[in-house]
């Protein structure tokens, strides 16, 4: 540890936890050896877009006495400003920062833990199976929990019927399952996604490539393009896909089921306009 000049540095990241991680890496020491001050907590923003970054100030604590763990632990009293999760102890926080960073971010805002979330999803799975059984369709729902956001995957022989035209039936089933789930009062507010035969993932990939293709077109022509009306989840996929795409912006317009994404160029082609006006 550097004892000569102890400078305070600012770190920025999506979440406070990640910023702290970055600070730890920079100073090359554990979190407990840092004095951390939170500047801004940051926010996820709408659909995870346009969120503010979390800012922290950190400097290493220079031990005056020889390293005794008890004194070290007594030191970072200032840390209590940071969220409730961190008070649970360093080890747990470390696990969260690493493997479960994404879920932690999502669930933290709601103050629920992973275990509760998984129970919530398994109840949803049960509801799905109860409906599928009575529908006479061959399909079995299973929880997929290894991912950051647990979801339900349906396997069986009647997947094409379960998905339906343009995913209609799958969407309907998902909607009903979530309605039932909300009534069960699990203490968790989390919409469970249903997936079958990789339909959602395939759709996502299609949307992303379509979005990119259209963005190039918009940039070239300088004219905005509106996409087909889509449900919120699919609109979000488009917004996220084009978030980092330079030269275009996206927004949604219209209401209800006719709400659609519009891709607009950042710069309008003035020359073309002038020419047209002169003619």
């Amino acid at each position, binding site marked *: 540890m550097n004892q000569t000049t102890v400078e305070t540095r600012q770190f920025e990241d999506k979440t406070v936890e990640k910023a702290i991680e970055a600070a730890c890496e920079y100073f090359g020491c554990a979190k407990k050896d840092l004095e951390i001050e939170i500047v801004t907590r940051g926010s996820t923003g709408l659909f995870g877009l346009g969120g503010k970054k979390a800012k922290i100030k950190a400097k290493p604590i220079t031990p005056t006495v020889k390293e005794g763990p008890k004194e070290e632990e007594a030191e970072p009293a200032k840390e209590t400003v940071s969220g409730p999760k961190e008070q649970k102890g360093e080890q747990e926080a470390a696990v969260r920062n690493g493997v479960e960073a994404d879920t932690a971010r999502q669930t933290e805002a709601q103050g629920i833990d992973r275990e509760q979330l998984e129970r919530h999803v398994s109840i949803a799975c049960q509801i799905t199976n109860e409906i599928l059984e*009575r*529908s*006479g369709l061959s399909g079995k729902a299973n929880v997929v929990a290894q991912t950051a956001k647990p979801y339900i995957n349906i396997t069986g022989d*009647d997947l094409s019927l379960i998905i*339906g035209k343009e995913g209609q039936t799958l*969407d309907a089933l998902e*909607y*009903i399952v979530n309605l039932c789930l909300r009534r069960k009062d699990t203490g968790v507010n989390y919409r469970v996604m249903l997936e079958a035969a990789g339909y959602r993932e395939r759709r996502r990939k299609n949307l992303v490539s379509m979005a990119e293709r259209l963005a190039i077109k918009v940039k070239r022509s300088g004219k905005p393009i509106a996409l087909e009306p889509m449900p919120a989840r699919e609109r979000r996929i488009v917004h996220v896909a084009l978030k980092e795409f330079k030269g275009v912006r996206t927004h949604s317009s219209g209401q209800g089921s006719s709400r659609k994404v519009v891709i607009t160029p950042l710069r309008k082609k003035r020359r073309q306009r002038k020419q047209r006006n002169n003619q």
Partner: protein
Amino acid sequence: MKDLIEHIAKALVDFPDQVEVNEVEGQQTSVIELKVAKEDLGKIIGKQGRTARAMRTILSAASTKLKKRAVLEILE
């Protein structure tokens, strides 16, 4: 199919014992009549009829499997 609608309806309402489902079978089409407590009508129909539409979608998938047609009617 009657079972399916009954199950979904009972999971959504406040008064499950007042849920009544009748199936009127025709040659090709069967009509499923759903009756719920007055207070629960809104829950079964949903915002902009969304819940009712979702139930009909699931019902039609289930009836396609049986190579039949089914219509869901919500009785007031």
